[in-house]
């Protein structure tokens, strides 16, 4: 079962919340023992910005197991407002909207459905911002 791994990461999956190194600013999904960038041991809770711009994307038409129902779907590289780059599924777009560094915003969606009996895994995806201009 993947439940403990999913549950430990819900803060990040649900609202991009994690831990920022007090010394160098590196963002970690979970609270590490030492900063992976500078070795510091001091961290503060932080949330990444929920909007940014789309840098590039690819459409997945032959999905891995468990994602068949969602195909075709898009994976985008997004630059958040603070400069952090993040990979995310894109949702609720018309394909002709995915261009010109379109403004995107995080939404809360179903990411994986484990059959009829397993848990529903939720998490962030990005969609074209409602206020795009």
């Amino acid at each position, binding site marked *: 079962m993947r439940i403990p791994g999913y549950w430990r990461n819900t803060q990040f999956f649900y*609202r991009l919340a994690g831990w920022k190194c007090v010394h160098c600013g590196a963002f970690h999904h979970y609270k590490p023992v030492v900063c992976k960038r500078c070795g510091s041991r001091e961290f503060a809770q932080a949330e990444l910005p929920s909007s940014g711009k789309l840098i590039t994307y690819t459409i997945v038409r032959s999905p891995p197991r468990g994602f068949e129902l969602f195909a075709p779907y898009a994976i985008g590289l997004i630059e958040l407002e603070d400069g952090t780059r993040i990979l995310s599924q894109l949702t609720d777009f018309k394909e002709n909207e995915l261009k010109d560094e379109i403004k995107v915003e995080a939404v809360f*969606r179903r*990411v994986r459905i484990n059959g009829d009996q397993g848990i529903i895994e*939720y998490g962030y995806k990005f*969609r074209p911002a409602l*206020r795009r201009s």
Partner: protein
Amino acid sequence: MVKLGGVAVHGYGGYIPRYRIKAEEIGRVWGQDKSGSPVVEKAVAGIDEDAATMAVEAARMALRRAMIDPKKISAIYVGSESKPYAVKPTGTIVAEAIGASPTKLAADLEFACKAGSEAIAIIAGLIRSGQIEYGLAIGADTAQGRPGDALEYTAASGAAAFILGRLDDRAIAEIEAWSAYATDTPDFWRRPSDKYPMHAARFTGEPAYFRHILGAVQSLLEDDGYALNEIDYFVFHQPNVKFPLVVAKYLKVDQEKLSPGLIANLVGNTYSACSLLGLVNVLDQAQPGQRILLASYGSGAGSDAFLIRILDGIFERRDLAPRLAELIEDKIYIDYSMYLKFREEIIMR
């Protein structure tokens, strides 16, 4: 009628998914001419959306407007008849997603289309008793209509969320009074193993919708209640366009007081979110001092009626999140085969 005084709306949010299907397109498949249908199109949840995800989106907008620390929200009631889990509360998912976790109370409510307004009544009581400081009441549904059934043309998806707390000078609106009316009336139901609801066709009108809505509303207007000219907007549950119009006519309410809260023609019947989204649309445009009468209806059957007075806080809060009209206008049309995929009607092997 119960004077509630002291309970206020601090944040509100309405969410409508981006996808729409026209009644005409559904009619094309079933050989029905729906070109003149009053419900022109309905909102359809995307393939990765459910009542929990839409509840979160509406709650996030409510939180942006409330400008409070989400950790102060200690009760989250989600009313829905399409909750993603039969057992496991939706409210705890919402709490984690908006940063309110750990919260205290988070049960799911079901009362057909009035579960969301009943959540407001419960939260208001918890606030008045001093048990909680802030509470979040949500109505969210991905409503299902059996393929080919009359409900398929209107059963839609959406969510509305309200953060309530004690009345202070920052509040958006005060909930002044509440009344409710419920009886055992089998007009619409769904057994546990069935995916689609059953309904008693014409029986849903007179003894069900009209009797209960009027039962709740008249108690607000009578016994030491309010006069029609003290109320600026009327929002009724809108399973279609006709029913709220008939109630308004019976009560002698002008069309101008009804239309700002009537959106079923553009989004369909969003069940637990239905009358609440009408309220959101009114909050998006009302002025301080104005009064709104909200009356929900849930089959089975019952109605909650509230009187809500807009306060000065509306000015600085309203634009902290998108208005409902923006979500109504931002749409992607889908055809019936895409609709079947989104509703998970295509069997994957």
